[in-house]
Every structure is written in C-alpha cells, then in structure tokens.
C-alpha cells in the first residue's frame, strides 16, 4: 500500500509539525516559572465530553462533528495499518458510521465556511478559513475516491456507504480518477499535518495542553504575587508565567468571553478577547527572546481604561471553552500599574488611604466598627463558640447593609446558635486592596487579620459578604490562615434543612434571584440560594434570563465600587432594566455590592412599582419573626 516515497513524505510532514510546534512552544516557555500539575484524566474527560463548547449549540455541534470527523478516521486508518480481522457486520457498521460522520463533518465545514464568508471579521476571522478549506478538501476527495471505487465495483447502492453510493452514481468507473483522488486526499492530509503549527489549528495542541494544565482552584482565588522581583506584576509580556502565556497561545478568539463580559456589554473599552490577543501578538513579536532590549510595554497595547473597566466578575474565565483566564492577566497588569508606577485612578486613592489609616474601606474607623450592633445584644467573641460572625466593612458601616447584619444576628439567635463577633478586632478582609492592585497593603491587612483570628476559638467563620468569603476561604490559606469558612446563604440553607429555624410567614410575591459573582462563578455556590428562595411559603420563584453562570455583574466588584463609571452605559441600569422587564416584585441577592448597585439601578429607572431588593438574609429574618 504505502510506497517508500509515501513514508518519506509522511516523515517530512511529521518533522515539519515537530519543528513548528517546538518553535511555537519557545514563545510561551519564556514566561516566569510557575508550579502546575497536569491531569490526564481531566483532559480525557474534557475531550470525550466536548467540554463547554456545546454552550453555543450550533457552532458547538459543528465543532464536535469536525473534531470527531478528524480524530476517528485518523485512528481507524492507523489501526487498519495492522490489518485487524473484523467480522463482516461490524466492519459494515463501521463503514456506515464513518460515512455518516463524513457527511456530518462536510455539513459542519460548509456551515463554518459560510460563517467565515458572511459574518464580520470578529465573529469569523478570515485567516481561519485556510484549515477549514483544507479539511473540506480532505472530506470531498475522500468521498470522490470512495464514489469512484464503488462505481468501479459497480455494486449499485450499498447501505454501508450511502453517501459514497450517491457519489458513485454520477462518477465514471475510472481507476485513474480514483488514484488521483486518493493521492489528493493523501496530500491534503499531509498538508494539514505539516501546516498545523502555522495555522489557527495549533489550538489542537495548545488548547489540549492548556486543559491538561488547567487550574483546579476556584475561579475566585487570585494568583498570588511574588514581591521579590524587580517590580511587582506584569510590565512586559515575559513577566507573565509560562502558563499565562500558554493561555494566550491557546486562545482562538472565539469571543465567548466578550459576549459574557459585563464591561464589554455595557460599552466599555474592555474586551477580554482583545487583552489576550494583544498578549499573544506581543508574544509573537518577541519571538522567544527574553534578553532583547526595548521590549514593548504591555500598556502600549492595553490601556488603563481597559484595565480599570474590569469588575473581576470571572465571566470570561467561566465561559472560556479551553480554560483561558483573561482575569489573572488583567489583575497582574493592574498590579504593575498600581505598585510599580503608582498609577491608581484618583478616586480610588481615597479608598486605599482609608484602608491604610482606618483599616476599612469606608474610612469610618475602628472605633465605629461596632456601632451597628450597639444595644442589640450582639455578643463579642470571648470563649469558644460555634460561629464567628465576620461582619465585614459593609455590614459594619454601610447604612443599608447594617440592616442585613442585624437580620443575620436575629436568625442566629432564633436558631439558638452560639456565636460572636470580633468587634473592634476585625479589619477589612483586604479584598478591595487586592482587587485594586495594592497587593502589599492586602498582605499587611490579611496577615494582621489571620493573627487575630488564630487567637480565637470557634468552629467556623460565617461571612455576610461573598467577597470576604472568597478572600477568607481561598486567599488566606496561602498566607497561613486556613479556616473553615461558610457564607451566610450556605449556613441559612443548612439551618432551614435541619429545621433549626422555621419560615413561618409567607412571602406572597414574584421573586427572582441574582447570583453574586463571587459566590456563583467564584466558588460554585448556586444551590443554597435557590434552596432558600424556594423554601418561602407562598413565593412564586422564577429565573432571570441572565442567571447562574451567566449572572450579570452589576459593576461593584474588583474595586469598581470605589471607581467612577464614566465610560459606556451603566452596568446596574442595564441589569435593572432586565429585572423590571421580568416583572419581579422582590429580588433576592446575597452581596452588599450587588444590593447597593441593584437598589440604585432600580430606583434610577423610576418605574411605577419598583422591585424591592433585599438580601436573602433579610428576607429570611422577616419570615421567622
């Protein structure tokens, strides 16, 4: 079957593939060191289950057909070189399956090419048409060769290869044509293999590697930063770690991040796709050399407006089909801008200053930290208790959220839980400083908090704010403070489940939920919120269009709570319109930033009967008396 010339050609193609891949890998291997362990089982599960690609049903299934249309025939061709003996029915069925798969792949490829032809450059980049055309050539020549073969055999219609039979009915029984088609098919396959590292198809390798090395931490956990190097954060492209650069290499610009990014949707200059693309372009321009002087700075391509538009809502991380994390790159660039150059937006300087002097984001001071609890019988933590209630800056200072903190106390008392607060010992958890890029201030505050928490005896920490929750749970352990942390929603759901509290009074209203980013996408906590919302007697619960993983950030996270929103539309108005359209009477959430932004947004729309925004904790408290 194979001549020695063919073998030579195959070897040459594989050699070109190898050299190409090695050269591509040198692009991202210049990154800084980072410890990552891979998982083959995760990769296998991802490839077999087609990962997240099917979230877009049409394009996703086209991709699935093309993927298996390449992988399965390639495997079968490889195996058939050893001439295995198969029973006739099995080989017939296999033939039928491959024929149909080929047809599906043909349709998928035509669909993809039409998309590339008709859609804009953003939705279907023209450069990606080359591998698609090559694949189309492979499929078409394959069918033509099959058709002529059947035509030579003169068997008429055979059920094992229906598509081939259709082709054979119009093709001449010419052995020459068959040979030509087989050669064309063979050359097209070789071309595909050899060109793989140089076209968009390299995502087969880079994407798989990226899935293999994917982070297994919760999305909410930010990459920790080394403060030992010359400057903190990412100034030039080689300041990123190799994994971060591999992320950029694996990105195929599918745009799922952009479609879900609240900043992009509300017309701000940020697009996670553009950020990753810029990094990829700079990586290519650098061409694997680290020592080259005059390397361009990252912020020549990625402006401050882009960096500061990010709400760190993790939608881009959640929706990327190959686990690219645009967020940690944006954060590393922020860190350099703030700590390396002191370029923090003016309005956020006051917040950082408050954190530095008063240890809270509202600048009210430690002396006022227990004002919300004054005369309300909130116990200070003294002896060993079950629950340490972590109030957070919002619970302690924000006039609206103080009500939630009091409601939480009411629930804990109703449930007979022994609890206590740290009172004036509690500081800000440090999340705003960290998300604003001030890592050194975060470390200072966090270490002080850990020291103070460790002195106390308790079973678990209960937080009201998802941002505190995420910081205490995911970010303190790397600083030596591993504590069991639960969020109020989880804890209350458990209390209801164990009948510690009974929801006595009904809530006759149409209620919807907003999933806070740092609970949902950040830590995968969706169910407790649902459980609580459905536990109220008399409630009509329904879903907003943007729910769960697609929950739309209101623009309070990532330090945006303390920044002006000057560009584009206001995120909270966009979301408020959705809520008003849905006809919800009560909107439940579980985050102080969401609560503030939501209330502002809905009041701003000035509708006749505005939806009432409440924290789930408050709703539960009003339902238990």
């Amino acid at each position, binding site marked *: 079957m194979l001549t020695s010339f063919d073998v030579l050609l195959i070897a040459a193609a594989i050699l070109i593939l190898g050299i190409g891949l090695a050269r591509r890998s040198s692009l991202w291997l210049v990154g800084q060191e980072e410890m990552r362990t891979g998982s083959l089982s995760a990769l296998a599960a991802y490839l077999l289950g087609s990962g997240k690609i099917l979230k877009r049903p049409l394009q996703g299934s086209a991709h699935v057909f093309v993927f298996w249309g390449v992988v399965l025939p390639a495997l079968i061709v490889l195996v058939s070189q050893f001439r295995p003996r198969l029973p006739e029915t099995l080989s017939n069925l296999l033939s039928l399956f491959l024929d149909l798969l080929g047809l599906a792949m043909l349709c998928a490829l035509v669909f993809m090419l039409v998309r590339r032809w008709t859609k804009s450059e953003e939705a279907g980049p023209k450069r990606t048409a080359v591998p698609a055309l090559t694949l189309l050539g492979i499929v078409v020549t394959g069918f033509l060769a099959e058709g002529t073969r059947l035509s030579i055999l003169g068997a008429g219609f055979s059920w094992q290869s229906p598509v081939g039979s259709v082709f054979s009915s119009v093709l001449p029984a010419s052995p020459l044509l068959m040979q030509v088609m087989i050669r064309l098919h063979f050359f097209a396959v070789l071309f595909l293999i050899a060109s793989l590292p140089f076209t968009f198809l390299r995502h087969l390798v880079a994407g798989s590697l990226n899935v293999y090395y994917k982070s297994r931490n919760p999305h909410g956990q930010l990459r920790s930063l080394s*403060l030992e190097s*010359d*400057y*903190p954060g990412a100034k030039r492209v080689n300041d990123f770690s190799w994994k971060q650069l591999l992320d950029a290499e694996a990105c195929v610009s599918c745009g799922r991040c952009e479609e879900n990014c609240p900043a992009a949707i509300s017309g701000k200059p940020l697009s996670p796709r553009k950020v990753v693309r810029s990094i990829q372009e700079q990586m290519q321009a650098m061409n694997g050399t680290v020592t080259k002087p005059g390397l361009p700075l990252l912020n020549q391509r990625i402006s401050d407006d882009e960096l500061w538009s990010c709400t760190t809502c993790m939608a881009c991380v959640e929706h990327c089909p190959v686990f690219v994390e645009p967020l940690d790159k944006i954060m590393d660039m922020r860190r350099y801008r*703030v*700590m*390396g*150059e*002191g370029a*923090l937006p*003016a309005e956020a*300087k006051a917040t*950082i200053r408050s954190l*530095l*002097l*008063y240890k809270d984001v509202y600048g009210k*001071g*430690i*002396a*006022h930290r227990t*004002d919300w609890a*004054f*005369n*309300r019988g909130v116990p200070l933590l003294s002896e060993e208790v079950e629950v340490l209630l972590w109030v957070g800056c919002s619970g302690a200072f924000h006039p609206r959220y103080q009500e939630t903190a009091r409601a939480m106390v009411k629930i804990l008392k109703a449930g007979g839980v022994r609890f206590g607060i740290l009172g*004036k010992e509690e500081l800000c958890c440090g999340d705003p400083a960290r998300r604003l890029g001030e890592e*050194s201030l975060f470390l200072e505050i966090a270490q002080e908090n850990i020291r103070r928490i460790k002195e106390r005896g308790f079973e678990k920490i209960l937080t009201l704010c998802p941002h505190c929750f995420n910081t205490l749970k995911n970010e303190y352990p790397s600083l030596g403070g591993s504590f069991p942390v639960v969020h109020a929603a989880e804890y209350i759901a458990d209390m209801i489940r164990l009948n510690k509290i009974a929801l*006595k*009074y*009904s*809530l006759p209203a149409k209620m919807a939920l907003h999933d806070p980013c740092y609970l949902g996408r950040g830590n995968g906590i969706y169910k407790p919120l649902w459980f609580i919302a459905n536990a109220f007697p008399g409630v009509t619960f329904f879903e907003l269009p943007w729910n769960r993983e697609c929950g739309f950030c209101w623009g309070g996270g990532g330090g945006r709570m303390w920044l002006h929103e000057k560009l584009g539309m206001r995120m909270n108005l966009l979301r408020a319109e959705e809520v008003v359209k849905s006809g919800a009477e009560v909107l439940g959430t579980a985050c102080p930033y969401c609560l503030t932004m939501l209330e502002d947004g809905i009041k701003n729309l000035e509708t006749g009967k505005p939806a009432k925004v409440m924290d789930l904790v408050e709703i539960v*408290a*009003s*339902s238990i*008396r």
Partner: protein
Amino acid sequence: MKIIVCIKQIGHVYARTGMEPSERFLTPEDKIYMVNPCDEVALEMGLRLKESLGEGEVTLLTLGPIIAESELRRCLGMGADRLVQIETDQGLDPWRKSFFLARAIKEIGASLILCGKESLDRQSGQVGAYVAHRLGLPFVSAVVSATMNPGTGTVEAERRAGRGVRELIGCSLPAVLSVDMGLEVRLPKFEDKQRALSAPVEKRVYPEEGDPARTLVRAIFPPRPRPKNVFTPDSRLDAFERIQQLLMGSRVEKKGNMFTGSVDSQVDGIVSFLKEHGFAGKGKE
C-alpha cells in the same frame, strides 16, 4: 535646589466612643496617628517642583518624638530624599516650635521651605509664619500651586485669598510657603516604599535654651457635647442619669424592637410583646 518640607505628626481623634468622663470619653481606638494632611500636600508640591526642575533634594523635617513612623516612611516612599527629626519631648507652643525648626533649617540650608497651612489637631496656623520671621524670609500663606523660576531666583505662588478669590504672588527665593489642600497626593511605588522602610532618620538635638514660650495652653476641652451623637436617652433610667447621658454626649440608643416583614408577622410580634409585658391577658386561645 534644596527644598525642606516641615511635616507634623498628629494623633487625630476621629471619634468619641468612650464612656469615661475622666478620659474625656476617649478610647484608644478613637485616635489614629498620621501625618498632617496639609503637610502631605506640601510634600507633593515640593516633589512636583523638584520634578519640574529636574534636580534638587527634598528633605522632610519633623519635630518631636516619632509617633507615626509608618506614615513618615510612606512620605519618604513618595519621593522625599531624607528625613530629619529634631528630638525634643516637651510640649511646645508655636513660638518655641519655630525656634527649633528655624535652627534646623538654617543648618540644613534650603532655598524653599514648605509647610502645611495648618495642622488638623491644633489649627493655629502660626508655625510657618514664625519660622519665616525667625529666618527673615518672605512668607506666603495658603498656597495651592507654585512654579519655580531658578534663573531669576523667584517663585510664583497662587494662593487662596478666601471667597473663591485667588492671588498670584511673585516672591524672591529663599522663601517660606504654607500650603493649603488641593493637589492630589501621589501613591508611593512599591519599590520606593520598600527602600523607605530602611531609610535612616537623621536625629538632631538642640539645647533647650532659646526663647521662652510666649503663649500658654491653659486647657483643652470640648465646649459642649457633640450634638450629632446624642440619641434619645434610655427611658428605663431615672431622670438624673438621663440628663447625665445627654451632658456626656455618650452614644446611647434606645433599645427598641422594630417589626418589619409581612403584616402577619407584625401583628404576631405586637401581640406577643403585649403578652410578654403584661399589657394583655392570655386570651381565650
């Protein structure tokens, strides 16, 4: 070009949450140690002048014990070149303060002396003027921006003249300017902050003679309780204690129970309250 910025460390009392009249209702948390905000703006102005000239040295000069070290080091991290401390541990009046400051300034030598318009704690606003008097230099107060002209040896200062009026003043160097709030203070870079952590503090000690104090602080007291923090006195206390609470200005909030939620729950709440307190009988249930 040498610039000296006089910087005051203050203990800023931002709250009054204590219960003890003998401690003036203060608790340790009510006070934070910081650098006077106006002086920080003065430092920012000094740094901007240094940057616009392209050369120069900015010296921080502080008087008295170091109580806000981390804040002083942050100021060094902003870009000041050195920190000089005049060691003295006695309470001083503005005239005595200006004696020590003027003496140190004479020793260090500078063509521009910047200080804050007034401090957040005492707000006398006199020290800058006294220093200028002792050194025999021109003095411009409440400056919000300044440009230096090293060729002619003058500084052009824009000052706040009250009622929204600005005055533009040309002044020969050396001079003393007292700076008002206005400029946006910069954030120190991380590497500068780290460097400032190990920067030395140059200490200077001067003999205690010199001019005697010309003013004397007889007492520091709040003239009346702060009205905004007074809440309704606890109705369970007797009249004497209630009046005492009002006079003290301490935070006492009435312990009430607000029933929120659905109508059912409010009714239940009121009924159970009445029963608990004996206003209503057990009923016939």
